[in-house]
């Protein structure tokens, strides 16, 4: 089964998303900020990254940009998962290389659907 890296600064969120994905059968890795996430990506090479936007230090889009800069990680799709819900936010996130955009709060079904769509 595919390996997914989940990045969020809030532990509660991290646990919730991990639970959703694990129950859907994915292998889940976690990180609490962008820097840690980069290290994890280098170590374990996940198939997809689900990241929060607003995090202290390196944000989710910074992480996305860094992944897109590196030819080894350029093909890893990034799903942004945030409470920000404006058109301009979506536009900006898409420009930064985000493949899909999920607005918090969301159901398990929603995130699984999005991840499936992106994986295809």
């Amino acid at each position, binding site marked *: 089964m595919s390996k997914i890296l989940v990045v969020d600064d809030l532990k509660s969120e991290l646990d919730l998303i991990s639970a959703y994905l694990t129950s859907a059968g994915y292998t889940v890795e976690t990180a609490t900020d962008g820097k840690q996430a980069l290290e994890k990506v280098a170590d374990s090479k996940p198939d997809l990254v689900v990241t929060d*936007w*607003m*995090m*202290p*230090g390196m*944000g989710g*889009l*910074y992480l996305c*940009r860094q992944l897109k800069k590196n030819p080894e990680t350029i093909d890893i799709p990034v799903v942004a998962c945030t*409470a*920000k819900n*404006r058109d*301009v*936010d979506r536009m*900006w996130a898409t420009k*930064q290389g985000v493949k899909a955009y999920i607005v918090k709060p969301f159901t398990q079904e929603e995130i699984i659907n999005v991840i499936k769509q992106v994986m295809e």
Partner: protein
Amino acid sequence: MNTSSPELVKVSPSLTDNQETLIPQSPEFSNDPVKRGGGSLRQRLLLTVVPTTLIPLVVVSLIGINFTRYQEQQNQLTKMENIAFVTKETTQIFLENISKNNPQIQNNNPLIIQGIKDILARFLGFQLSGSQILQLIDGNTGKILTTLTPQDVNLSTIMTEDNTLGNVAKIFSQSLQAKNSPTVLASLKQLREISKVRLENSRQKTDTKLLIFEYQGRYFNFIPIPNSNIIVSISINQGEITQIGGELIILFISISIFLGFLAVANIILLAQTLSQPLMNLTNKVQRIVSGDLNVRADLEGTEENRTLADNFNILIQKVNELLKEQEIIANEQRQEKEKLEQDIYQLLDELQYAIDGDLTVRASLTSMEMSTIADLCNAMLDNLQEIAVQVKESSVEVSSSLGENEQSIQLLAEQTLSEADETRKTLKSVQQMSLSIQQVATNANQAATLADDAYSLTQEGSKVIDETVASILSLRSKVGNTAKKMKRLGESSQNISQVVSLIQEIALKTNLLAINASVEASRAGEQGQGFTIVAEQVGALAQQSASATKQIAQLVAEIQQETQEVTLAMEAGTSQVVNTTRLVESTKQRLEQVLNRSRSINELMKNISQSTVSQAKTSRLVTELMKQIAQQSEERLNSSLEIAKSIKATAQVAQQMESVVEQFKVE
């Protein structure tokens, strides 16, 4: 200043007073669209009701009044006529009764007239009023028989001794007697004093004629009394008749003024009652417009007005509700705005050191609204940081490698410089060489030309010598011939001397013969005389011949001598010619040698010239080549200088870049 300052003073306090600014009263606000539509309700009512009701009323009243006035005047005139008629009837009956009793009595008897007057005064006197005057006039004499006036009329004003009336009465009476009414009118119209003359039938009796005219502002009626010459005259002041209408007009005007005032007052009252509630409502609206939203309109006036006020109150209530909602929304927005401002402030606070070159700063992503912009700024700063680091590294590399290479570059430039210098010098000497080769070529050319000239001159000389030899040889043969001819001449002159000695002998013998002949002739005598003369002459001739031959012999001897001398000279000349010929021959031989040598010199020169020309060509090529080399080395020098310069500039730029990038803080 004087005109504007009071306005300013007036305007500034009115700004505080909303009522005044909202209801502009002065004409300067006539452009106000509120005023443009027309006047107030009162003005409109006055403008519409007054013309539509009062004017027809006035017109109808005028017509009625005039009609009544006319009728009233006619009544007055009829009344006057009636008085005249009654007077006539009374007088007629009185006179008939008297004439029945006393047919002799004249009509104009003063007693009778007095009687008539008394009767009239008693029965008709009270009928007379105003300025009415009743008179009886004698139609024959024109005299006024009696005059009856109302009691209050002053008699002095009445014309009792007027001839005009008498004249009129006379003419009228005469015409009646003549029963010729058209003439009476014509003759009466000729009288200037009277006017508006007309003849009518009496309204009571058609057979009674009635003469009407105006005289001295009075209106006269003349009626004749039948069977007598007395004429009844009744007159009235025209002013009295017109006065009747005048009174009526005054009455009418006062009534209409009263009615007009009443109507206007009514209209104003009506307008007031209609517009007052509207005005009240308008004032309320203006208070609301000025900001007092707690105002409520009173329900008063007409039904429409009440509906309007009620709806207006509902509208105000709704507006109030809307305002409250608006206030809540505005509050929310203000809070949001404050939050946003705070976020912006935070963003600026976090990123402000980037201005001074600190590229390590990053915006935090805590704000929901600003985190997109914060992310954009962070992305930019990331890139800038990377670029700055790269620039820093590469500028350091550039300046260090340039520092290492600077000396060798300097050396290279110097070498290039000296090389260029050498090349320049070489070029100069090659140019000089080329120049001297050119000169040699020119000289060789000149020498070749000279040698050519010498050769041709020598050839010419050889030719001349050949010709000289030929001419000497011909001279020699000619001299030989001449010598031979001379010898022959000597021999011939010897022959001549032999012939001359023969002729001398002949002359001698002839002389002897002549002597013999003369001797013989002398012997012969006379006859021989002639012969003697001939013999003498022959002797003379013989002598002459002898002397001539002597001269010839002498000449011949001279010729022989000269010939001998010539021959000797000829012989000497011949030997000289031979010597000369020999000399010329040797000269010719030497010239030929010279010719041969000069030919070889010429060829040599040609060879030299050709080789120098090719040498010059080669040296020119060499020069050209050297020039190119010099140019190239110059160019090389320039470009190496340029390179050195630009390397220096690059080093400077690298240093500048380094110092600029130094400003950025990247770690």
